[in-house]
C-alpha cells in the first residue's frame, strides 16, 4: 500500500494503462509540458513522450473530435477537458457524435475513449469553473459516467474506463485533488457500474458521489454520536451503469433514502435514484425520500457563499436529523 493523493492517482492510472497498451494516447490543454493545471498529469510527457502525450491548442471540439476519430479507427485515446464547464463548448461531439455513433450505424463503430475532466465546486472559482455536470452526461444514452471519491478509486476506475470498449466520461472532483488515501500496490483495475457501501447503519441510507462522499461519511459520524441515528453510506462511484442492486438492497434494509448531490436541484442524479427507489422499493420505505442538493442557482464564488450553497456535512446532519426520528 502506498499513500497517494487523488491527483497522483490520476497520473498513476493513466501511466499504468499507457505502459501496457501502445494504443492508449493522451491529449488535452497543458497536460504535457505543464503537467496539467491541477498537476494531475505530472510525469506522463517525460515517460511517454510527445507522440503519445499531446498538448493541444484551446480547441475543445478539436480535442474531442480527435479523440472520437482516433477511437473509431483503432486508438484508445484519453482526452482531458480542463474544467467540466468547458464541455458546453464541445457538447456536440460528446452528445451528438460520440454517444450515438455505435447505435446509429447499427454497431459498425466502436468508441473506446475516456474523457477526463475536473468537475464540481468548493474551489472558489465561480459559476463557470465549478459546476457539477455529471448529470448532463447521465442524460445522454451511450455514455458511461464515473465519478470517484478516493485515490484508490481514481486509479482503479480510470484503468477500467480506459480498458472499457465504450465512451466513458470520467469526472474528477477538483476539490479532492489534494486528498490522500491508501492505494494498493501493483496493477489496479476496478469495475465500472459498482457502488461501494462505506459505512453500515440501520436507520437511513445515504447515497453520495465524489466530494459529497466524505461529507456524507462525516455527517454519518455526527448523526451517530449526537443524534443516535445510524446511517449506511453508499458511494455510487458510477452513474452509468448504475448499481441499482446495491442502492435498492441498502435502501430496503433501512427503509429511508437520502441522496446528497452537488447538482443544482432540477434533474440532478438524485432525482433518478429517488424515482427508481420509489418505483421498486416503495413498500420497503418508511418515509419520504430526502434529496439534498445545491439550490437551483449558479454557484457563487466567495467562501461564505459557496460553503452555504453546496451540501455540507452540517447540512446533511440537520436535514436528516430533522426529518428522521
Amino acid at each position, binding site marked *: 500500500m502506498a499513500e497517494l493523493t487523488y491527483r497522483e492517482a490520476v497520473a498513476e492510472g493513466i501511466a499504468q494503462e499507457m505502459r501496457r497498451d501502445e494504443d492508449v494516447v493522451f491529449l488535452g490543454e497543458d497536460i504535457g509540458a505543464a503537467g496539467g493545471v491541477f498537476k494531475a498529469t505530472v510525469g506522463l510527457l517525460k515517460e511517454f513522450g510527445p507522440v503519445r502525450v499531446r498538448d493541444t491548442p484551446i480547441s475543445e471540439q478539436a480535442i474531442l473530435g480527435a479523440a472520437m476519430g482516433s477511437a473509431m479507427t*483503432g486508438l484508445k485515446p484519453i482526452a482531458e477537458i480542463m474544467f467540466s464547464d468547458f464541455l458546453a463548448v464541445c457538447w456536440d461531439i460528446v452528445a*451528438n457524435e460520440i454517444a450515438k455513433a455505435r447505435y446509429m450505424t447499427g454497431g459498425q463503430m466502436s468508441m473506446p475513449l475516456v474523457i477526463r475532466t475536473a468537475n464540481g465546486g468548493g474551489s472558489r472559482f465561480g459559476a463557470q469553473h465549478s459546476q457539477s455536470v455529471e448529470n448532463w452526461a447521465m442524460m445522454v444514452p451511450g455514455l458511461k459516467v464515473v465519478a470517484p471519491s478516493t485515490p484508490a478509486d481514481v486509479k482503479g476506475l480510470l484503468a477500467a474506463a480506459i480498458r472499457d470498449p465504450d465512451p466513458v466520461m470520467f469526472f474528477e472532483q477538483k476539490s479532492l485533488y489534494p486528498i490522500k488515501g491508501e492505494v494498493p500496490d501493483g496493477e489496479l483495475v476496478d469495475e465500472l457500474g459498482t457502488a461501494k457501501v462505506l459505512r453500515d447503519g440501520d436507520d437511513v441510507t445515504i447515497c453520495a458521489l465524489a466530494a459529497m462522499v466524505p461529507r456524507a461519511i462525516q455527517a454519518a459520524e455526527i448523526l451517530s454520536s449526537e443524534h443516535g441515528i445510524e446511517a449506511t453510506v453508499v458511494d455510487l462511484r458510477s452513474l452509468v451503469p448504475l*448499481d441499482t442492486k446495491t442502492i435498492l438492497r441498502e435502501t430496503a434494509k433501512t427503509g429511508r433514502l437520502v441522496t446528497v448531490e452537488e447538482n443544482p436541484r432540477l434533474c440532478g442524479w438524485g432525482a433518478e435514484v429517488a424515482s427508481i427507489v420509489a418505483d421498486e422499493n416503495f413498500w420497503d420505505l418508511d418515509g419520504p425520500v430526502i434529496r439534498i442538493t445545491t439550490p437551483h442557482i449558479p454557484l457563487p464564488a466567495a467562501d461564505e457563499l459557496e460553503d452555504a450553497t453546496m451540501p455540507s456535512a452540517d447540512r446533511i446532519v440537520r436535514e436528516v436529523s430533522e426529518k428522521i426520528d
Partner: protein
Amino acid sequence: MASKPKAAKGEGRAKASRKKTSAKAKSLANDDIGEETRLKLWRSLLEIRHVEQRAYDLFLQNLIKGTSHLALGHEAVAAGFATAMEKDDWTFCTYRGHHHTLARGASMEGVLGELMGRECGLLQGKGGSMHLTSVEHGAMGSYAIIGAHLPIAMGAAWTSQYKSTGQVSVCFFGDGTTNIGAFHEALNMAAVWKLPVVFVCENNLYMEYTPIGDVTAVENPAGDRAGSYGLPKIVIDGNDADEVYRTAQEAYAKARAGDGPSLIECLTYRHSGHSRADPGDYRPPGELEAWLKKDPVPRYRDRLADFGIDKKVIDGIDEKVMQQVEEATEISKASPTPSLELIEKDVWADGGVAWRN
C-alpha cells in the same frame, strides 16, 4: 500546389478539342488519367446521378420519409476524390452524403434501403438519410451537425499518422461549414500536427437557403481561409471530374508523404433545393440553367467522346448502371421493415442497451 484557375479554362479546352476528336484520340495513350480510370469515373458519376434521381422519385411516391439532401450536381466531387483514393482510405461526409457513400462502393440497395427505412439499408434503418455509413468501404460516417466531422476526420488521420499506415482521411463539407468554429479548430490542429487529412469544401454557393457570399467575409469561403493555417489556396472546378481527380491525387500524395493537410474548395452547384422541403425559389432566374450547362455528367460524356472512347462503351455503362438502380429499387422495396428488436441493440459494445444492473 498553387491556386488553380477556375472552371472556364478546362471547359474551353474540352470544347475546343471536341472539334478535333481524332487528334485528341491519338493522344489518349499519353493521357495522365487514362481510359480505364476515366470509365471508372464515368460509372461513379452515373451511379450517383441515377441513384439520387431515383431517391427523388421515391420521395414523390412517399416511399422515402423524413428529410433528404440530394447531391444532384455534386457528382464530380465525389467521383473524383473517391476514384483517386486507396481502398483503405477513409471518407467523412455530411448529411448531404449519399454521393460520397456510393462513390466508396457501398451498395445501391444499402443506400436506397436506408432511405426507405428497410432492413437492407446500410444501417438497417437506424440512421436514415443523414447518417449513411459503411465502415467496410471506408465510408466512416455522414454527420448531420455542421462542422462536427472535421475534427473527427482529423482524429482518424491522427491514427494513421500514429500507426504509420499511410491512410488518408478525406473530409467533405459544404460552404456553410466554413463559418463554424469546428472548421477552424480542425484546420489549425491538423496543420500543427501535420496530419494526413484532406478537407474538401463543396461550395455550391448556398448555405442552406442563404447565398454564402451574403454571410461570409471573403470571396472563397474555404480557399481564402487556407492561408490562416499556412496552407495554399486551392479553388477548382468541382464539376470537372478530371480536375477533381488530379487535385485529389496531389493532395493524397502530399498527405502520404507526411507533408500535412490540404484544404480544397470545389466550385459546384446543387440542381435541387437544400433538402426535400426546399424548392430553391431563392435562386435568381437563369442561375440554375447556367449551371446545368456545366452539369458534370453530360460534360463528362462529351469528354469521353473527345478522347475517342466508343459511344457504345459510354452508353453501355449508362444502361448497366440504370439496370442496377432498377434492381436495387426492387430489392429495397421487397426488403422487410427493420425488426423491432433493433431498438434495444447496439448502444454498447456488448450489443445491449443496459444502463443499470
